[in-house]
């Protein structure tokens, strides 16, 4: 007969106020299957754990049930305490009488009776618990980072500088991301290029970073510690090994298409590098727009290239990389201007978005840092900035706050004043949110010293009248509607997840939330990990954030990866699916329901088996198995039936 001890926690008054703990202990002592029952005010405290350990030894217990808070809080605590006293940790179970009893009830009498039932049902389960050993899985100490913006760059450098190899995969021809487009950064007004490009160069030259630009993840298989990733290396149509990056080809190219990097404010050729500081600084041919690919004639770039690096017949390549951990740093896009028709987005030429204004301010931008409006190149004297263009609008656009706009708009207005001294910036806002170091002071500086006009209220419509762009909004602090005949309007469009993130998330089997951003394992306590083991998150792919937060998170994700790599092998929870080989008929229903690809068909044995390293113990296959061949370890059908019987009061 198994000797089971039950330890009932008062949790101060959290449990004891609603549940009569002494009576619970009395009831438990009457149960012949319970060897020992006892209560204590704080079971998780040192003396509480000491009590559990001593009783295990003195009473020669085979298993322990701790009736306390949710197992997500202290299951590990008590399993460790039990192990220290010589028990197999999986012989320790938690009966949750706080979240599932005392906190949700008021009637002391009935709550006490319910607590007894909860404990007895866990005792019934524990009776049938087996002693388990954690599953050990080897780790491939090599990381992949998806996305080469500042988040991916920082994560790659941190992991590589800790001594591990990194494969950095970037979809665009260059790393750098949106940060490379920025002029200066709030609140210090550091030049974005000046702080970013040295890091880009470091990535490009790092002996432990394998840089794969113009590449996309096609397929991921495997599990934490042992992933295999297929990557499509898109054909740049240029042999990068021999190309010197001289740029002659780009000058000769007769094609003109709007430059993505400069937000359409100027043009690039069909053969191009996105910007002069690109890493790698090698061109690609945009086949959709290239004259040769469209008509079969031209090849001007080929005849210009002195080293003969143009490769019109180059094909995409699929390569495979083996890695142990993957950092997902896919970044953001902004809501397209065209989506916001009432603000003239896409219709009125002098209505642009924040990233376009960054390019106008940038010394390396299409106007060499002079603020000139797109319609006629005039220097605008009245500039209106509209915040929350598509953010905080659950009815029509995005419900959330895009978080970076308050500060970048303030920066825009300030930098505009620095360029155009007699110009006047106006900012329409709902709230000015300045939660960051030095941010409030930056906002005050804009208002107080730079004379930026802040108008609290939304803009109703923006339209063109002659060469002016008329803004109709409201100033709720004055209680008046406002009209400004502007020369240029800048919309702080909502930050949205990068294009293709949904598809990528499906390939990686990681989760996204309702707004399409990647989901973390726990919003407070595990913010840089995905719920799927082995995947880590960094940057705006998870939710909108500024550069300091992105860099901090990227370093956090990198340190999680290096912590994983600090061990030779990993321990995984053994409470996963197990198959009774004699019962399994090989119907494969389990394979179809498994969200983790952990169920496989063994052709030889003609049964479905479990890949222990992949199984997360969700129980989907256990529920689906028509013949009961698949059972969850320590949560078998028999255990569940016993628990139900106990819950019903043994009737």
């Amino acid at each position, binding site marked *: 007969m198994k000797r089971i001890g039950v330890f009932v926690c008062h949790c101060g008054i959290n449990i004891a106020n609603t549940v009569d703990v002494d009576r619970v202990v009395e009831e438990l002592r009457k149960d012949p299957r319970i060897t020992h029952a006892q209560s204590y005010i704080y079971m998780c405290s040192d003396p509480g754990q000491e009590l559990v350990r001593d009783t295990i030894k003195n009473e020669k217990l085979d298993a322990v049930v701790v009736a306390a808070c949710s197992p997500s809080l202290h299951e590990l605590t008590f399993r460790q305490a039990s192990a220290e006293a010589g028990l197999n940790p999986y012989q320790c179970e938690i009966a949750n009488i706080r979240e599932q009893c005392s906190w949700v009830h008021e009637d002391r009498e009935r709550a006490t009776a319910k607590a007894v039932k909860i404990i007895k049902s866990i005792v019934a389960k524990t009776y049938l618990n087996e002693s388990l050993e954690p599953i050990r899985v080897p780790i491939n100490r090599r990381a992949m980072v998806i996305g080469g913006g500042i988040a991916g760059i920082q994560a790659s450098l941190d992991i590589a500088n800790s001594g591990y190899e990194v494969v950095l995969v970037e979809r665009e021809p260059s790393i750098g991301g949106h940060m490379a487009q920025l002029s200066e950064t709030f609140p210090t007004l550091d030049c974005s290029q000046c702080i970013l490009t040295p890091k880009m160069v470091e990535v490009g030259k790092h002996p432990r970073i394998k840089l794969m630009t113009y590449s996309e993840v096609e397929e991921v298989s495997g599990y934490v510690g042992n992933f295999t990733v297929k990557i499509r290396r898109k054909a740049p149509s240029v042999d990068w090994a021999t190309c010197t990056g001289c740029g002659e080809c780009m000058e000769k190219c007769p094609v003109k298409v709007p430059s993505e990097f400069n937000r359409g404010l100027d043009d690039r050729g069909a053969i191009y590098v996105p910007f002069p500081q690109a890493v790698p600084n090698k061109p690609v041919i945009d086949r959709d727009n290239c004259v040769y690919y469209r008509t079969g004639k031209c090849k001007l770039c080929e005849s210009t290239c002195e080293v003969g690096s143009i490769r019109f017949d180059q094909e995409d390549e699929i390569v495979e990389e083996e890695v142990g951990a993957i950092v997902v740093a896919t970044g953001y896009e902004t809501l397209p201007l065209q989506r916001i028709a009432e603000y003239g987005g896409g219709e009125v030429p002098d209505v642009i978005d924040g990233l376009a204004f960054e390019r106008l301010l940038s010394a390396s931008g299409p106007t060499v840092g002079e603020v000139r409006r797109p319609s006629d190149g005039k220097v605008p004297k009245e500039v209106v900035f509209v915040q929350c263009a598509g953010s905080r609008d659950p009815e029509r656009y995005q419900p959330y706050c895009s978080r970076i706009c308050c500060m970048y708009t303030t920066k825009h207005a300030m930098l505009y004043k620095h360029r155009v001294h007699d110009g006047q910036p106006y900012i329409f806002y709902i709230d000015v949110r300045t939660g960051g170091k030095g941010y409030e002071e930056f906002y005050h500086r804009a208002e*107080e010293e730079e004379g930026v006009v802040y108008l609290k209220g939304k803009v109703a419509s923006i339209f063109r009248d002659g060469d002016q762009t008329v803004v109709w909004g409201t100033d709720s602090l*004055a209680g008046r509607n406002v009209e400004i005949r502007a020369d240029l309007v800048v919309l702080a469009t909502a930050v949205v997840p990068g294009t293709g993130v949904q598809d990528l998330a499906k390939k990686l089997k990681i989760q996204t939330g309702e707004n399409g951003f990647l989901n973390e394992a726990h919003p407070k306590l595990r913010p840089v990990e995905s719920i799927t083991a082995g995947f880590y998150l960094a940057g705006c792919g998870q939710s909108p954030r500024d550069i300091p937060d992105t860099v901090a998170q990227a370093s956090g994700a990198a340190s999680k990866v290096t912590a994983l790599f600090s061990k030779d092998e990993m321990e995984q929870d053994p409470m996963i699916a197990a198959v009774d080989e004699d019962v399994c008929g090989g119907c494969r229903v389990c394979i179809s329901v498994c969200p983790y690809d952990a169920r496989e068909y063994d052709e030889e044995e003609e049964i479905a088996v479990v890949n222990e390293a992949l199984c997360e113990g969700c129980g989907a296959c256990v529920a689906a198995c028509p013949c009961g061949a698949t059972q969850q370890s320590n949560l078998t059908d028999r255990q569940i039936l016993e628990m139900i019987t106990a819950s019903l009061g043994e009737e």
Partner: protein
Amino acid sequence: MAEGADNETTPRLRLDREKVRGEFGKRLDSLSEQHILACYQCGNCSSGCPLAEEMDLLPSTVMHLVQLGQSEAVLNSRSIWVCASCLQCTVRCPKGIDIQKVMDVLRQMALAEGIDHFGPDQVDPRNAAEVPQPGLVSAYRKLST
């Protein structure tokens, strides 16, 4: 009392750089020795003002309108005359703006512009004791200028 001017209805404010950063704000700054743009509209002056209930514009609204160069709305308001110069706003302001002094200058500006605000003959002698001092004094000043 002064005519409420525009304060009865809410016509659209037309803002441009001449208006919002024009002479009015500069003069106000220089006469009051305050920096109007330092106000970030927290509303602490209004919430502590003992006479706010009698005003057509809250003190913080007065500050906001002067930031936008809206001289007419402010100089024609009752608020600048209802103000009792009790200094509550001044001691409460987190940015250290002497708001009472701003109010004082606004009254002087209104007088200088000859805005018909209040005459001593309008005061019922029985209530004279209850009229705020600055109002009463300025009424006589107007006669003397």
